[in-house]
């Protein structure tokens, strides 16, 4: 394993990404970036299934955007839209993240240890074998899974936080599913979303994901696996079917 260290202190994102790409081209599989502070687009469009990028600091928005393959581990909070339209790979955030986390994500996984902002998982979508997964350890703000067209979104409410306490969950959802540990107040559901208690089968489906999430953050998965979950899914795959009439 070849390790490359990059000091990002006062480094603009373009040269930073150039260094990352150069390192990968040179065969590096582990890239450690220190002193990250606000640089946007880290790992944007980068390929490399065996590459791990460790970000020490607070990256700017659109972390791992269009990324296809690598794993990014952030030791700090992330800003808006980590995993934006990401294709493959993994983003593991040891902290919280801003609004629109995993926006339009197509594949791979985003794990956020703590909380996320508004519109998490907005318009995540799946196609054939590509099924994106977003797992949030803490709580999510309003409009979680809005427009969701596919994929899996899990909110765990760790450390005693209420996972969902704001409006618009699954508003316009027409594909994919949201699993929330514990109950969800009906008033927080968005238009076109319905909730049911998760079945044993559904819990079994998320078990390996939760175990992997717990492993990344050194958590005990046991209490997460015995909990009850609420499953939020589309009431219809055609939310607009009744909206229009012909001239």
């Amino acid at each position, binding site marked *: 394993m070849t390790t490359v260290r990059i000091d990002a202190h006062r480094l603009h994102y373009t040269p930073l990404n150039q260094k990352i790409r150069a390192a990968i081209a040179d065969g590096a599989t582990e890239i450690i970036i220190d002193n990250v502070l606000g640089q946007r687009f880290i790992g944007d469009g980068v390929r490399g299934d065996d590459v791990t990028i460790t970000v020490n600091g607070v990256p700017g928005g659109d972390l791992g955007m269009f990324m296809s393959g690598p794993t990014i581990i952030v030791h700090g909070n992330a800003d808006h839209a980590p995993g934006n339209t990401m294709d493959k790979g993994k983003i593991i955030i040891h902290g919280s993240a801003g609004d629109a986390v995993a926006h339009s994500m197509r594949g791979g996984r985003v794990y956020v240890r703590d909380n996320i902002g508004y519109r998490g998982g907005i318009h995540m979508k799946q196609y054939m074998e590509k099924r994106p997964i977003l797992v949030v350890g803490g709580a999510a703000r309003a*409009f979680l899974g*809005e*427009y969701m067209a596919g994929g899996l979104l899990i909110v765990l409410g760790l450390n005693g936080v209420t996972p969902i306490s704001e*409006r*618009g969950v699954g*508003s*316009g959802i027409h594909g994919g599913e949201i699993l929330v540990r514990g109950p969800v107040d009906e008033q927080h559901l*968005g*238009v*076109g979303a319905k909730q049911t208690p998760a079945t044993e089968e559904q819990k079994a489906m998320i078990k390996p994901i939760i175990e992997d999430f717990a492993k990344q953050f050194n958590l005990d998965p046991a209490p997460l696996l015995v909990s009850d979950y609420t499953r939020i899914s589309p009431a219809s795959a055609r*939310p*607009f079917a009744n*909206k229009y*009439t012909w001239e």
Partner: protein
Amino acid sequence: MSIGSIPFKFKVSIDPDRCMSCGRCVENCSYGVFKKEGDDIRINSRNCVACHRCLAFCPRDAIDIEEKPNDYRSHPLWTREVREAIFNQAKTGKIILAGMGNAKPYPVIFDRLVLDACQVTNPSIDPLREPMELRTYIGKKPSSLKLKQLPDGEVELITKLTPNLQIETPIMIGHMSYGAISLNAQIALAKAVSRIGTFMGTGEGGLHESLYPYQKNMIVQVASGRFGVDINYLERGAAIEIKIGQGAKPGIGGHLPGEKVCADVSCTRMIPEGSDAISPAPHHDIYSIEDLKQLVRGLKEATEWKKPVFVKIAAVHNSAAIAAGIARSSADAVVIDGFRGGTGAAPRVFRDHVGIPVEAAVASVDAKLRQQGIRNEVSIIASGGIRESADVAKIICLGADAVYIGTSALVAMGCRVCGTCYQGNCAWGIATQKPELVRRLDPETNSVQVENLIHGWTLELAELMGAAGINSIESLRGNRDRLRGYMLDEGLMEVLDVKTVGA
């Protein structure tokens, strides 16, 4: 008669290949166009008003109605309408009565205004997935709030809010009286508004007891004739509207002919059967703005200040100043009825020549109230020629809080805008009191159609707002920046306070 016959207005023909002589046209035409003679159906085109009832009920699409089949020599000044009006008056020496709204081809301001939408610098909002607030409160609002800071950090509201009507869409149905329209038509409208959560006006005809179940969605009208007005009537309404004038005929009163005052109408209007119901031009207890205030307060005292009181005026040149006076009179809302407003019957000369368009009137009223710093204290309801959701959006941008629709709601029940309501022969059972015609209008199905219409408009309005990046209707109100004038002249753009397209 030296003038002789004048050409048909409409020529009706039946395609013999298609007709199966079922006689539905004969049954449905209330104007006597069709007559069955043996297996044949005879046609008297002269009686046709183009209400399309026959067309709508012909099972074989066999009927054709052609407008103006015979040409006059064309002339830009001496139009067909002008010539025929002269023939008419030469024959009769009378005032020409007409129906529906202004029929002159004045340019429609609505159609020369275009709406805005977001691109890039701010996101549009999807109303189906994110909150979109069309809720509107009609009534008086404080100019500022008196609050008391409590020791526990809480705040106590000292100002007391006065009653407002809460509507979930800025679309209400205007005043069309029992008498002008049938009871079934009123019931259909009433069912629709109560299901939607909006309001309708009773018109000046009182409140028939079969409307009592819907009274909490009804605005009772007090007009110059005071028909059907007693304390019970006032208390039943959710709000009270003083009608000063009407856009279709500003400055004149109304007249329901005795023939239409049947037993039921007489009872609701509280006048003897068969007697003419005459609404004077002015209210004879209102000869000045101070008197208006007196009546507003009289109505409020009578109903213990529990009901909002609206004042409706026709849009005239001086609407802005009048509205400012109304706003200071304890009235809760000003209704501005533009010159395209419909009516069952109005002198043609008034319908076509008196008053101004609601777009200009609302813009100038809104501006005047703002100049005086009292715009938000009173609501503005616009009516007269609101045809589609875009008109609603545009008039709100110009400063209205809500609209009344009239003709549009009737069209939703089948009205074809034939404009002969005053004949009392409405084949659709709307503008008639003839029991056999009224029966044609099923209140339940028609209420669903009216409800559908308002629902569809409301959806479109939400889409328009969302596209403009606005999620609360307050932010559309008076937002002239979101309008542009297209081929409007400079003077009008100044009145409307809008820029031209491209600016």
